[in-house]
């Protein structure tokens, strides 16, 4: 990643000239805020140590705290109701936050949009590709990582680490971003192992630990020897598979410590790239980008360092796949059929093509159904 230049002087200078869109620290009680120049408010929907989505953000926020002149205030377990609206408003009113990072999908509509209209001097960025340039306020925006690229790498490593050629996938809901991850695992595995298949079980909701454990067990029983997942907290799936002696690929954050024997690699976000970019843009008085999205080519996603479960050829192929993705090598090389035999991808699409965001199918080679 390209290190972003960051000096205290630049921050102070921009503060002095009153950078646009930057609300200065309005002072808190008892000097709790110290001498920070930019206060960033972060809201999480769950716990910061959930081994999943929230942890991925919290890890990045932790290193954002080391940036001079940046003060961070965080709130966890904030539900997707007006509670989040009030939490963000409280950060602006009581902590003087100039940048709000809303990290859960359901925070955007209506809460982030309404609040951005109400507080035009504060900047709001939301972690999902929802910002609409025709309708939504200019001080709001979206940032997102194309995690399916890292899942593709999972698939490559898994395809060469499996003995049964069956990869199990525990998924929450059959929505576009989940389906894209499942299909990417298949295409990654098939790119190195034409016999590989993916078996998917949908649990129906984002956090159902009991059903996730049942699904992981069922997949192992069905002969899958590498298990991966897309649920809010992958902890249960990874631990269950490890106990059953299956290998595992992670999701969202690093689950390597949970599976010392079978961990292969994992798909992780690298939010810090985006967060540091925001902080430095604000410090230099630049207007923040309203839409920031990408994958390996812009260093927004990464793979967890290989664990004991990864085979040597798997590691080599995965590293080569990462180089390919950095060079924008496409994942979806058409034409491709869905698992009912219908051609759903007519030609080769670029990795960030909006066509792929509307995915509502499982590709041929994936066992399971979206309905």
């Amino acid at each position, binding site marked *: 990643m390209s290190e972003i230049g960051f000096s205290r002087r630049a921050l102070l200078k921009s503060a002095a000239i009153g950078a646009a869109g930057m609300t200065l620290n309005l002072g808190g009680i008892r000097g709790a805020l110290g001498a920070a120049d930019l206060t960033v408010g972060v809201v999480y929907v769950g716990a910061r140590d959930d081994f999943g989505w929230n942890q991925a953000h919290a890890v990045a926020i932790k290193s954002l705290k080391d940036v001079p002149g940046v003060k961070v205030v965080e709130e*966890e377990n904030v539900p997707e109701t*007006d509670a989040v609206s*009030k939490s963000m408003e*409280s950060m602006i009113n009581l902590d003087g936050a100039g940048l709000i990072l809303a990290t859960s*999908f359901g925070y955007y509509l209506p809460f982030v949009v309404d609040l951005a209209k109400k507080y035009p001097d504060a900047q709001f960025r939301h972690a999902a590709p929802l910002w609409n340039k025709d309708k939504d306020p200019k001080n709001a925006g979206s940032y997102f990582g194309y995690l399916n690229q890292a899942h593709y790498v999972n698939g490559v490593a898994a395809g060469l680490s499996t003995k049964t050629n069956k990869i199990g996938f525990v998924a929450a809901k059959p929505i576009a971003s989940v389906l894209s991850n499942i299909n990417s695992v298949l295409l990654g595995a098939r790119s190195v192992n034409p016999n590989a298949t993916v078996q998917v079980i949908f649990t129906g909701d984002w956090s159902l630990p009991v059903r996730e454990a049942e699904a992981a067990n069922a997949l192992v029983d069905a002969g899958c020897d590498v298990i991966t997942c897309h649920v809010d907290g992958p902890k249960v799936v990874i631990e269950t598979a490890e106990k059953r002696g299956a290998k595992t690929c992670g999701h969202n954050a690093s689950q390597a410590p949970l599976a010392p024997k079978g961990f292969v690699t994992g798909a992780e976000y690298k939010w810090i790239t985006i967060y540091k970019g925001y902080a430095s843009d604000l410090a230099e008085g630049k207007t923040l980008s309203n839409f920031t999205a990408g994958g390996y080519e812009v260093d927004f996603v990464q793979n967890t360092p290989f664990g004991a479960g990864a085979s040597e050829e798997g590691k080599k192929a995965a590293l080569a796949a990462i180089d390919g993705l950095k060079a924008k090598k496409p994942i979806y090389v058409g034409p491709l059929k869905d698992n009912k035999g219908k051609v759903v991808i007519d030609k080769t699409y670029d990795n960030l093509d909006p066509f792929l965001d509307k995915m509502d199918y499982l590709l041929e080679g994936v066992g399971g159904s979206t309905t």
Partner: protein
Amino acid sequence: MSNAPIASDASREIVSPTATPPARSDFADRLRANSEYAVIPLFALLIAAVLFALFLLAIGKSPVDFVAYVWRGGFGTAFSLQNTLQRSAPLILTALAVAVPARIGLIMIGGEGALVLGGFAAAALAIPLINGHAPVTLTLILMAVFGMLVGGFWVGLSGFLRYARGVNETISSLLLTYIGIAIMNFFVEGALRDLSNPNKPSTMPIGDAYMVGKIPGTQVHWGFAFGLILCAALYVLMTRTTFGFAARVTGGNLRAALAQGLPVGRLIVACSAIAGACAGLAGFFEVTAIQGRANASLAAGYGFTGILVSFLARHNPLAIPPVAILLGGLVASGGLIQRRMDLPDATVLVLQGLIFVVLLTSETLYGRFAIFRPAGGRDRT
């Protein structure tokens, strides 16, 4: 639970409906007896505060800071106070959903399900109305009524099962909550899904024009005002009408009520349905004042927090608003406490838990202090 002073008021009315206004000494007696219901809870709150202060000291945090942040985050600024009132709005309505059945002797905890289904029903009804460009006021009234009907039906079902089949209403209302949430998810992820929103299954948005606004001059939505009105109305219903009296007699002694020929079944179902309607109205406001659509975010736990509020208010509709505001303030300041004191989110839950346990324990203190006893040795029980 002990509703002694209210019951004795009401029974006096029934015995002599044309009673003359009470004499002054009677008023003093009543003040003395009723002050017990203020002094003991306040004392319990104080004990809980002391216990919580010890907890904070044990983990090396300052209780003084904590109080300062609760004040600032929950009440101390105009923003904080409105934050608190807004958070208390759904709690007032869901607490009523527990308090009304409690008067007839039912522990009904299905407010969450009625809230979710009521909100969902309102949002579902809105789709054809808005597509047909129905007038805003009419649409909102129909949505509210439909939400209350569906919520009322859902909790009424538990009441009916209690009366007709002897099914434990606590269990059935809790289980119906999960069924209610599943029904909403079924439609929101299926037939009624807004396809333009691929990643968060929701119904069609009702649009800004059809949203219920804020109370003028504030940042608090109308659900708060309707909560207060309903608290007053249901207090009158339960304490000043024959319906309320009959319900309380049934709650006090079912056999006596049956022997008197009271329509016990209808009373039970009616109280349950009123409860469900309150929660359904809370769901309507969540949809029309907050979310703008129905989705899984409706199941945010308001129905369960309402149980706590109702118990703390001793199922008295007039005590519900202050208790809900107190809890709303604690939750509202919870964020500031997390941010400034570096305490986990669960800290406020520890305080809530302590308050709950100490208040329930304090129930045993009623009637033990001579100072609250009316002069003249009239026994309250």
